[in-house]
């Protein structure tokens, strides 16, 4: 019943509404389970390898422990009045219709056990208050449904008490881990970070090689020797970016963008092979200790390299951890330059330069695209950019508008703090649960469809590695080209005018090159979008 | 929940209690009542009471109380009726004629063509088709079954629409807080009022104060009575002499008639 915008043209009504209410379809997603972690994935993180015998008591004990450690958990479990405000807010519910994907119902999976064991009413009148024992079925339900929550916090925005299902999901996953029922994707990746320093398990030499290749590519394209330094001691800035930026499209174009901006700004910067990962999957499994360990790697890298500033690349939950938690987990960062935000988002960095007029752009380089912006959930609802509340919405948009001529926002109920998750966040970016990932992406895809059809939007920009990966995968399912998802710094990279090196070569030629490339890309993707639209 | 009377919305319990207390009370009241009334009043009452309406009976719809003003008897410098009305109803005075309540006033009428002039009292005309009643949004202005037009000040919201509608300017608005009102003539700030035809006296079988005053003054210009009763003095005089109503053209059929105008 939330109000939305009138749809004025009759034909527009036929476009699917991103907020359309599904009919309830109990159990629709009951079978959606991510692969369980292998014993060594679990043990590597200090969890029991497989389901322990006394799982019931351990789970209850853990719940009790968490109740004493997290006020959020404690208060949220008591306060829900079942008002229903959140019921239609989760993208997984909108996509799947499974009532257990309604945030409150998801919480209730855990709350019913809490009531049974920790409240008087639940002890003596379980039926009345909907309390239930922790049985194996309930544990399985936890495993399924707490892995159908991307911890995006959309429900929290609309709950009158700010009850954040993400917090409950994290707690539930922590309990699952303590009884030996971990999830493969998260736990395996965390193991890699601890061992190698990034999620992909990319060792230093590989990293070095990739960066050098990139440098060559850039120089070929632009004639400007833009550097991507690694492990440079004494650099001013340490860039911490998601490891996806090192190899996958469109992430890598973003990385090129950062490099060009640093280059233009004339600052000295470096990546670190010891801390070559911004992502911190420990947040997904709710483990404070794990999260702290991953964060401490970054502190160590910064100290070892002797940098003055830390800048974080485009990644949603990474930015949440960096912005909201680093200071707590690995602070105080009193050894860094206090004149700059600690840490600083790459968008803040670029935006500052734009404000100061230190960057010049040729906007027409992006004319082949009409853009819209997907606010990533962790950036939107769990962090900030700039010094004003809401800077996280305005700064990326300001950058896009500074480098592109054509920009259109999606429907108001689907952007900014009301943004929809891409469907792959919170440790769900694993292929065995493609089904729920697609269903979760549906609201966003419908919102995009509206602006694509009505305003001719061709590309969607994002500032999150998970979003970009997820969209590349699911967009084709919704009739979009997989390349219609772009990095914000990819747009910057396209439009930025680099100063020719002192010993200038023939920049014009290169420019032309780029133009052709861009035009080609444009025609390609436009055709694709057109084809997709026609199909519809 | 059934109602205490068909038209009532008070929500009171069905039966109003009539018990021992009440019976004993009624006995006391009879004596108390007699004591409370001043000697003069009792005097007049006794005669009529025999046939007058009992206090627990609603007013008689067959009656229509009215007034006849014999303009020829009303002298220019007399204003006894005006004074009597003020005293009777406790109309205070701030000495600002624009805002003071004037339930009855003396109007000088002068024919510019002839120079003929008269002075006559004008009060609420107790119209048979009262515009004030028609327009009142809450029904506070109403016409009693015996033709007396009143304001139920308990539900008057003070909108003053009735004042706009009355062709005779008969109504006043209480512009300021009052104190020391007469117990039998309550009135207060923010409500509209007008001549009640001294309803408390009429109900008690007495004459309106102005009528009494005029008679006492010796002029006898005011005649009060039941217009519907062919036997009444007023009806007979209306039949016998030419009279007119003010602005009869408006069709509101005032209950106050003027003779010799």
């Amino acid at each position, binding site marked *: 019943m939330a109000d939305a915008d009138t749809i004025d043209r009759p034909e527009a009504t036929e476009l699917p509404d991103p907020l359309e209410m599904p009919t309830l379809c109990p159990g629709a997603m009951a079978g959606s389970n991510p692969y369980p972690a292998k014993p060594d994935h679990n043990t590597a993180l200090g969890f029991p390898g497989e389901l322990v015998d006394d799982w019931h008591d351990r789970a209850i004990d853990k719940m009790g422990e968490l109740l004493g450690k997290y006020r959020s958990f404690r208060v949220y479990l*008591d306060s829900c009045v079942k008002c229903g405000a959140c019921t239609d807010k989760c993208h997984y519910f909108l996509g799947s219709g499974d009532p257990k994907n309604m945030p409150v119902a998801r919480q209730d999976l855990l709350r019913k056990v809490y009531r049974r064991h920790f409240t008087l009413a639940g002890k003596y009148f379980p039926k009345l208050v909907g309390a239930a024992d922790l049985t194996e079925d309930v544990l399985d339900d936890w495993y399924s449904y707490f892995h159908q929550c991307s911890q995006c916090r959309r429900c929290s925005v609309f709950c009158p008490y700010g009850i954040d299902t993400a917090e409950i999901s994290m707690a539930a996953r922590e309990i699952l881990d303590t009884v030996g029922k971990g999830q493969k994707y998260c736990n395996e990746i965390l193991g890699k970070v601890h061992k190698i320093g990034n999620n992909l398990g990319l060792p230093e030499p590989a990293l070095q090689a990739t960066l050098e290749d990139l440098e060559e590519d850039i120089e070929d394209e632009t004639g400007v020797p833009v550097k991507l330094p690694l492990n440079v001691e004494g650099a001013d800035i340490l860039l911490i970016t998601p490891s996806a930026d090192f190899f996958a499209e469109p992430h890598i174009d973003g990385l090129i963008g950062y490099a060009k901006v640093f280059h233009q700004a004339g600052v000295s910067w470096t990546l670190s092979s010891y801390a070559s990962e911004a992502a911190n999957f420990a947040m997904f499994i709710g483990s404070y200790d794990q999260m702290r360990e991953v964060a401490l790697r970054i502190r160590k890298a910064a100290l070892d390299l002797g940098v003055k500033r830390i800048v974080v690349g485009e990644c949603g939950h990474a930015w949440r951890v960096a912005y909201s938690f680093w200071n707590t987990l690995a602070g105080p960062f009193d050894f860094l330059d206090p004149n700059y935000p600690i840490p600083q988002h790459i968008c803040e960095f670029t935006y500052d330069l734009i404000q100061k007029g230190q960057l010049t752009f040729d906007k027409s380089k992006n004319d082949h695209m009409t853009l819209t912006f997907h606010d990533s959930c962790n950036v939107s609802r769990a962090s900030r950019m700039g010094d004003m509340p809401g800077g996280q919405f305005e700064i990326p948009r300001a950058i896009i508008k500074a480098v592109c001529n054509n920009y259109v926002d999606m429907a108001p109920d689907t952007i900014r703090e009301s943004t929809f998750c891409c469907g792959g966040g919170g440790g769900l970016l694993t292929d065995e649960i493609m089904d729920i990932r697609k269903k979760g992406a549906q609201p966003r895809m419908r919102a995009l469809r509206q602006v694509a059809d009505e305003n001719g939007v061709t590309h969607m920009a994002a500032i999150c590695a998970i979003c970009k990966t997820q969209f590349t995968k699911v967009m084709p399912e919704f009739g979009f080209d997989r390349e219609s998802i772009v990095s914000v710094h990819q747009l910057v990279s396209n439009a930025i005018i680099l100063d020719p090196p002192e010993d200038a070569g023939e920049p014009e030629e290169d420019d032309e090159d780029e133009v052709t490339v861009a035009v080609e890309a444009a025609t390609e993707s436009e055709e694709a979008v057109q084809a997709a639209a026609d199909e519809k | 929940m059934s109602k205490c009377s068909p038209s009532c919305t008070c929500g009171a319990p069905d039966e109003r209690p009539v018990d021992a207390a009440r019976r004993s009370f009624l006995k006391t009241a009879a004596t108390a009542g007699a004591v409370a009334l001043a000697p003069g009043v009792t005097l007049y009452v006794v005669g009529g009471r025999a046939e007058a309406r009992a206090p627990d009976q609603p007013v008689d719809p067959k009656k229509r109380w009215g007034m006849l003003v014999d303009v020829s008897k009303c002298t220019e410098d007399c204003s006894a009726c005006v004074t009597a009305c003020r005293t009777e109803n406790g109309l205070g005075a701030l000495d600002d004629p624009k805002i003071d309540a004037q339930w009855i006033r003396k109007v000088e009428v002068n024919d510019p063509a002839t120079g003929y002039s008269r002075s006559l009292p004008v009060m609420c005309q107790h119209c048979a088709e009262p515009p004030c009643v028609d327009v009142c949004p809450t029904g506070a202005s109403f016409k009693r079954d015996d033709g007396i037009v009143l304001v139920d000040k308990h539900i008057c919201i003070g909108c003053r629409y009735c004042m706009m509608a009355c062709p005779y300017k008969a109504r006043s608005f209480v512009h300021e807080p009052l104190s020391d009102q007469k117990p039998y003539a309550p009135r207060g700030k923010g409500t509209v009022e007008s001549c009640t035809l001294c309803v408390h006296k009429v109900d008690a079988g007495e004459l309106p104060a102005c009528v009494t005053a005029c008679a006492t003054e010796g002029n006898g210009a005011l005649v009060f009575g039941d217009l519907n009763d062919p036997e009444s003095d007023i009806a007979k005089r209306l039949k016998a002499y030419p009279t007119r109503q003010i602005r009869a053209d408006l069709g509101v059929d005032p209950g106050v008639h003027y003779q010799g105008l």
Partner: protein
Amino acid sequence: MLTTAYALLFYFATIVLVAGLAWRIYEYATVPAPLKIPTTPAPTTRRGVIFRMGREVVLFESLFKSNKWIWLFGWLFHVALAVVVLRHLRYFIEPVWSWVVFVQPFGVYAGFAMVVGLLGLWARRFLVPRVRYISAPSDHLMLALIVAIGLSGLAMKFVARTDIVAVKAFFLGLVRFDPQPLPADPALLVHLTLVALLMIIFPFSKLLHAPGVFFSPSRNQVDNPRERRHLAAWAARMDRQPGE
């Protein structure tokens, strides 16, 4: 006899309510919030947070953003409840503060508004499938209880009145441990019994949302993690370990 029974009932209910709530609030206040998790965009100053909380509590801002119908009935109910409670203050204080005398008459309308709001909320528990799915019997009972309190109160005003002066004397007496006789009017006895019941279950039910909202970290935290280090006691202990 009646008076004694109700006196005891109310002493008991009050103890449960006060002690229960105090214990809950103590818990909420002492369990640490180890991480900064305000739902952003969030205020960056303490004052901003107070303002945000004020809007939540007074206007139900988030609920408004979420769903206009639930907001309409929910807000109507709560505001009306607040006014009714203010009107009820007259039973417990002597002399009555003049502003209570002023708002007191509005309490009657609020009584109706409260019931209307509750019935709207209740209706949605039947009519909206999503809400039907998440409703437990206790959710219905809670609404039934408050509706019944409201209706018995209104009955006292409009159907079978009670001796308000004696009711007030009874409660003033309770406070002074000198209970005065309580009138034996059925509507009053029903009203009071249900109220006592409500007081007793308050600390054990979802009504904890009332104190809970003030302790919700996603609403009561200042968005300044970069500027200020936020550290819970148990987390601070870890900080020290490696070095020592």
